[in-house]
């Protein structure tokens, strides 16, 4: 990624309501964390989309490599025995 001469890039996460997790909504540029929060409020929560905001400098995020998708995630698809539907439960057994 090329680096802009201006303000650094921040990733924005918003909690839409109490009890839910923060969710990534997008990014923005700001000179520091305080400004990033203020800008995030104006850019991403103009219509009551959130009650809490996290901002993280984008260059502090480490992402998994898409080319390693298979080695990372394929094993979880072949382990069907990790799901309750894999097991036979005799008729007449309830609360399970």
């Amino acid at each position, binding site marked *: *990624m*090329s*680096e*802009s*001469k*201006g*303000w650094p*890039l921040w990733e924005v996460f918003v909690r839409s309501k109490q009890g839910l997790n923060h969710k990534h909504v*997008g*990014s*923005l*540029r700001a*000179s*520091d964390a305080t*400004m990033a929060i203020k800008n995030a409020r*104006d*850019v991403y929560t*103009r*219509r009551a989309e959130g009650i809490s905001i996290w901002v993280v400098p984008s260059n502090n995020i480490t*992402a998994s*490599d*898409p*080319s390693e998708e298979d080695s990372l995630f394929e094993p979880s698809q072949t382990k069907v025995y990790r799901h309750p539907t894999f097991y036979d439960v005799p008729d007449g057994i309830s609360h399970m």
Partner: protein
Amino acid sequence: MKDQDISKLEAIFQQKIDDDIKIEPNDWMPDAYRKTLIRQISQHAHSEVVGMLPEGNWITRAPNLRRKAVLLAKVQDEAGHGLYLYSAAETLGADREKTIDDLHSGKAKYSSIFNYPTLTWADMGAIGWLVDGAAIMNQVPLCRCSYGPYARAMIRVCKEESFHQRQGFEVINKLANGTVEQKEMAQDALNRFWWPALMMFGPNDDDSSHTEQSMRWKIKRNTNDELRQMFVDVTAPQAESIGLTVPDPLLKWNEAKEGYDFGPIDWDEFWQVVGGNGPCNKERVDARRKAKEDGKWVVEAAMAFANKRNAKKTA
């Protein structure tokens, strides 16, 4: 990378697109796909930002406090749309400052509609109703665009555009049902904005150089002419219902195609405006350049302040 490796990657990429699997920033993509998206998304961002100017022109002269609050909120939304879109372009590796410099140098384009002046208050109605209406037609299919960050930005944008169109229609409807002078003002705004609004969908399909490839990549979901027809079909009856006349003597319902026939578009005018010779091209780009120049010290001061505080923290 070897040529055969690239063609293998290209095949995987196209298969994903065909299967409606979204492409995300770190995924492999052909250079031309990346370039097309950067061009389209940054032009889209520029359009949102330049689009603030014709309407900003009327904020201080809105007829009452309600209209003023609404117009302010709308113009603020356009700024937000520009920011979502610049961020989406950045996920493709575009440099934000450079994209903005390309706008200022005239290298990058933006929607030609914003090169027309806003002469009366009725233009605020015509812009919301017609320009935002046409934008919605264009943008709703983009919510299903193959590139994830662009599609997600468009979902946010479309939710907000619907308010824009309704507020514009309310303004023009009020005038259309007002005094004789007010009605004339509404009609005049429709006369001036109708054809430029139809031009917003771009050249006819036969003359549109990017359409075919963009549709194969699912960046674009409908052709220019399809979207233009949809716009005319929904907008013509709206004009009629508020007693205004669409300035096209050839506009006529066609029972067989279940749509309107309409007159030819003046493509000379379109290309003149795209080429920089519209009524307000120079004024718009000058205003953006001035905003950047005048705001430069703020950008620098904020960064200097942040650096100083960080240095203190680590000391």
